[in-house]
């Protein structure tokens, strides 16, 4: 097994059966996985902020930082490998909240909302999700099987 680490504002795409894509400690960030069930190609991205318009320069340098530009880029790369929308399984995790009564730090919730909008525009659906709450999550995607697991507070479960 080869562990490929996806850092904050990074993405990875793989069609190597031995690879496991991993992203650690998702807080309000959104971890998105796409998996093509017929080609066994998987992609993962760890987006930090909802919309690229907050900093157009940054979005050019690093589109993976934002949910809008990041999702588009990840989809493009997967399509380039022959993936088709109809065979993509979409699973997401993260978008946690911190304890903030007035909601100034609702970055997680905004990340999630923007992602749903983008999927909706692409006529795609979320197959499974583990989002929200006050917890930090680690997500893995096995390229061989498409299995996605979430680890939080020492407990691992399949998504």
């Amino acid at each position, binding site marked *: 097994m080869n562990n490929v680490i996806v850092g904050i504002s990074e993405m990875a795409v793989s069609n190597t059966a031995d690879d496991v894509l991993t992203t650690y400690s998702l807080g309000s960030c959104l971890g998105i996985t796409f998996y093509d069930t017929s080609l066994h190609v998987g992609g993962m991205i760890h987006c930090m902020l909802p919309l690229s318009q*907050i*900093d157009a320069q940054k979005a050019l340098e690093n589109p993976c*930082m934002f949910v809008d530009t990041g999702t588009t880029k990840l989809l493009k790369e997967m399509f380039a490998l022959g993936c088709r929308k109809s065979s993509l399984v979409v699973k997401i995790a993260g978008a946690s909240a911190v*304890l903030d009564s*007035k909601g*100034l730090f609702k970055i997680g919730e905004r990340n999630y909302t923007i992602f749903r909008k983008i999927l909706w525009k692409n006529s795609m659906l979320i197959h499974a999700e583990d989002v929200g709450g006050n917890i930090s999550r680690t997500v893995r995607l096995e390229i061989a099987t498409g299995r996605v697991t979430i680890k939080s507070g020492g407990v691992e479960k399949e998504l």
Partner: protein
Amino acid sequence: MNGNSKNPVVNGSGDVQGRRRALIKEKIRTFPAMPAFVAQVITMLNDPAADAVTIAGRIKFDPGMTANILRLANSAEFGARRSVRSLQEAIVRLGLKQLFQLVVASGMGRRLSKPMPGYELAPDELLRHSLWAALAAEELCLALSIHAPDMLFTSGLLHDLGKLILDEFVDASKVEIFKVAGEQKLSFEMAEAAVVGMNHADAGAAVLDQWHFPAELVAAARWHHCPEAAGEYESIASIVHVAEFLSYAEGIGTGIDGLGYHLSQEAIDNLGVRKKDLEWVASHTLDKMRDLEKLLKD
């Protein structure tokens, strides 16, 4: 030492709490001093009579620090048109404030890199959280167009130092802390104080005080979870508070406690922080963080 006024007391456990607090105080008293070299350089930096030649004379005996200083002075951030080769020249280019930051970051880096089973932080996670908070604090000042207090970066860097003291105590009482936090709806540092007898903010401040760090920095550490109580240091404590909060929101150094703190609405209102400021700060901090981690790598 004045304790955090928000600390609640768990009824009936006063004795146990008192015993634990005594153990913590003993650990603070015997906590290893700052690396001697760091202490010497900091003393020099605070001495108006010391110049670049004297400071370089001391730093040159530490090859790692010398390399870091030269690298930073030659980095793009300082718009290095001409490359600097001598340590003395590098010190002049950086200025005392930057030098102080770098010396503390290089000097404390190793200690903040320890894994912490109590807080469930992997090796390097506390260091990443600390660097992130320090950088985010500076970026926040930029976003809000306010003057960054001199000790801000270093305050951000050392705000959670107390976790090094409390880790073993938190490890031993984890279940209890969560129980108290849940039942009494307390934020993590309050439950920490209620169960182990002191919170990590007070523990860290006690160590920094013992090291004779400036009062501003000690106060920022002490009040970083309750900045509205910091009196004349409310501003620096508030900035560090918001910066740390953002770090947790982004999942940087989020151990068992990370998402269990309460945001101080007073800090947000007093600083005038808006949603878009936070997002701007988050994106800029990530880049600064990559540069700094590269710089401190060895």
